[in-house]
Each structure stands twice: as C-alpha cells, then as structure tokens.
C-alpha cells in the first residue's frame, strides 16, 4: 500500500506492498488519497511532498487482475471505470495540494503510473532501470479526459506525441531530453537523495501553501476546468 513519513518540513509518501508493482486498485488509491489528505491537514508554509518507491517499479498502472476478476464484461467495465474515477480523485488531490510535490521515479512507470508521476510538480528519474511507458496504446485502451488534459498541461511539443502515440518505453535520458523529467540519476539512492535535496530547496522558499496551490491551479487551468475546479484569487501579499 503506502506509508507517510514526516522528516522536518518534508512529507515522504512511500509506495510499499509486497508486490513491488504498486498497481493501482481501490486499496492503494484510497491509501494514497488518504495520505494526501493527512498531508494537506498537517501542511504549513515551507512544506513539501516527495513520492518514492523502493522496488523495480514506481507504479505499473491499474490492477488489471483485479478488474478481470470481476467476471462478466459488464462488471469488468464497471471496475475499470471505478479505477478511472479513483485516478481522477488522485489527480484532483495532487493538483490542490498546498505545497510543492516531487516524484522520484526510481523504477518503471506505466499508464496510470505515468499519470501518478506527472501529477507532481517535478519528476526526477533513474537514468537506467526505469522507463515511462504509456502501455494503453498497446493494450487498446483509450486515454480519457482529464488525463489527456494532464498530458497537455505538463508536456509540450512533439514529446507529447512521442509519449502517447509511439508506444515507446521511454528511458530516463530520453525523458530528460523530452522535457518530461527535470533530471536523471544513475542509482536509486542518487534519485532519492536528489529528490530530498530539491524538496528541501523548494521548502526553504517558505511559500504560502494555499497561494501555491491556487497558482498551480491557474497554471493548469484547462485541466482544472475539466476536473470541475476553479482557482481563487488571493491577494494578501507578504510585502
């Protein structure tokens, strides 16, 4: 599932679970969303969140075994739709989090796992042993809104086409060149250390969390329109 640690100003969300794939099912979704709610409740100026996993996978997407176990075509579809709803809740929770967020993509991320990574303000990745893979295309699954809006918001130019339409497994170096990730590192420990360092640097800016979240929503206004949330102006400046 996931666990939440506090280290000074940093909230550390760790994807755990015996099956290192961290596949997204109702349990993991609820676990993450509830951790985010706790983070929000305990946030102060100068907080930051990092998301890490310590296995071969960052997140391998939806738990399709769980979906298929439903049985009939209709029930399978319903279960899949439920996971889509949960993923939407997840995007919403991240977009409204009142602090900077950084993802340490230490292992592979596929489909919903890529969405999870991109929910963060900054993504750092491992150079090797880590790919971003929008497997949806190869599985014959369409990508609905609001997730398309998330891709449009976060990735520019031909990189977006290459991520979504090429069916490629994008390694760290490539992801860096495509502007999808901030930086890449060689080992798991380096990624984690780098993520903590960036989080510390951002936390030291001591941003007003609520304002930060509203600025983020304004930055991703198309996504917010599709999610049905509005950004509110706040004008009580620190002068």
């Amino acid at each position, binding site marked *: 599932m996931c666990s939440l640690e506090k280290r000074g100003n940093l909230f550390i969300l760790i994807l755990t679970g015996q099956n290192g794939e961290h596949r997204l099912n109702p349990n993991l979704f609820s676990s993450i969303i509830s951790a985010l709610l706790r983070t929000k409740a305990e946030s102060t100026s100068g907080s930051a969140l990092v998301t890490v996993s310590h296995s071969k996978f960052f997140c391998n997407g939806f738990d399709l075994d769980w979906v298929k176990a439903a049985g009939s075509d209709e029930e399978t579809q319903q279960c899949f739709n439920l996971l889509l709803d949960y993923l939407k809740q997840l995007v919403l929770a991240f977009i409204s989090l009142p602090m900077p967020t950084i993802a340490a993509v230490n292992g592979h991320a596929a489909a919903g796992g890529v969405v999870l990574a991109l929910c963060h303000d900054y993504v750092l990745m491992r150079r090797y042993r880590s790919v971003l893979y929008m497997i949806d295309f190869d599985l014959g699954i369409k990508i609905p809104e609001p997730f398309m809006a998330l891709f449009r918001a976060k990735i520019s130019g031909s990189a977006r086409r290459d991520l979504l339409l090429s069916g490629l497994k994008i390694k760290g170096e490539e992801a860096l060149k495509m502007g999808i990730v901030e930086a890449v590192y060689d080992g798991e420990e380096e990624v984690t250390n780098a993520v903590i360092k960036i989080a510390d640097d951002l936390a030291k800016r001591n*941003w007003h969390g609520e304002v930060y979240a509203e600025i983020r929503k304004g930055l991703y206004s198309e996504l917010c329109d599709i999610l049905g949330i509005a950004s509110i102006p706040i004008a009580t400046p620190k002068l």
Partner: protein
Amino acid sequence: MCTLEKRGNLFILTFTGEDQHRFNPNVIGSLLSLLSQVKAEATRGSALITQAQGKFFSNGFDLDWAQAAGSEQGAAERLRQMVDLFKPVIAALLSLPMPTVAAITGHAAAGGFVLALSHDYLIMRKDRGVLYMSEVDIALTIPDYFNALFREKIGDASVRRDFLLRGLKMKGDEAEKRGVVEAAYGGEAEVRQASVRLAENLGRRKWHGEVYAEIRKGLYPQLSAILGLTHKAY
C-alpha cells in the same frame, strides 16, 4: 515616468529614471495614453520599441502604493485595481497595428515581465537582469490574463512552471536557450542596438498594420478573448 519619441518609423517608449519603473494607476494611465498615441500615428512600416533606463525594465505593480491604503483589505483592493487597470495596456499591445520589440536591459518582474512578454519580440541582456514572476514569493495569485499570456506565449510547459510555480529568476542566456527571448546580448548598448536593428528590419516589410494586429490576435486567441479583443478573420 514614461516618454514617447519618434525616430523615423520607430516609436520608442522609454521608462525614464533610475527607479524600479513600477506601475501605479498614474503610470498605467500614462502608458495607455502613449500607446493610444502610437496607434493613432501608425503607418505601414511602423514599429514599437519599449525600453527602460537604469537597473530595471520594470519591477511590476507599485506595492508601496497598495500598502499605503493602510489596511490589508485596502492593499488587496488597490492591488486588484492595478490588475484591472493594467489589462487594457496589455490589450493595447496585443492589438497594436505594428511589430513590437521589448528591449530588456534590466530586471523585468511580475507585471514588468508581463509587459515585456506582451511584445512580439524580446531582446535581453546576457550579463545583467533577470526575468522573474515574483508572485509565488510574495503570496499573490496570478491574474487570469497573466496566465493566458504565459500559456500562449511560452510553449514549454516546464518553463511556464519554472516561472509561475518555482519563482525562477531567469538570466538572459538561459532565457535565450529556453526560447523565452529572441536573443541575449552582452551589454546595454548591444541590446538597444539589436532592438533598433530588429525593429527597423521588421518595419522595412511595410506590413499592413491592421492585418498584422489581426494575425497577432489570432495567434493568441485565449488571451485575446480574456482581454475582450474581438478577432476579425478575413
């Protein structure tokens, strides 16, 4: 404050003095009136250069004036007022019937950066001055038309995020590399010369000003809509 001079086909708008060239209602009114004058005197071959003296291009809205309101509520109200008053300035630049160049020889922050970004071309100094959206650092949210401007003028999502969410202070060489400005030069004189050269080259094309403005509005449809500018497609 700000002055307007005509040099051949070039209109040159200058923020004079060594201060931060902050925008308060007076300065904004002045800017608006000068831009109206530019529009009225425009001919084929016209071009505008906006520049500033001193260490700053502009450091944005006059927060001292806002604070002078005396209360937190009063300050917020004055800020809102400036945001509203500034919108027509950006609208005027977006609909100006001639190419526009911002010659950035000093810091351009918040509203100052927005003013610069509202020009067709940005030329900057490599060695001095930064582009900076200070809002996140002073706990102010970004007005809708600022967001639209960034969305439509800056194609790179990471750059937009770095400016608005990270409060990055971007120097000229990085701005040139990341496509935020056209070019960055090694000193104040070089920037001014390059801006004049660019403006003159653009002016020599003798573009039909009204058509130029319509094409520009079509390039930035969301921003134009938020600014209340209608767009005529021939």
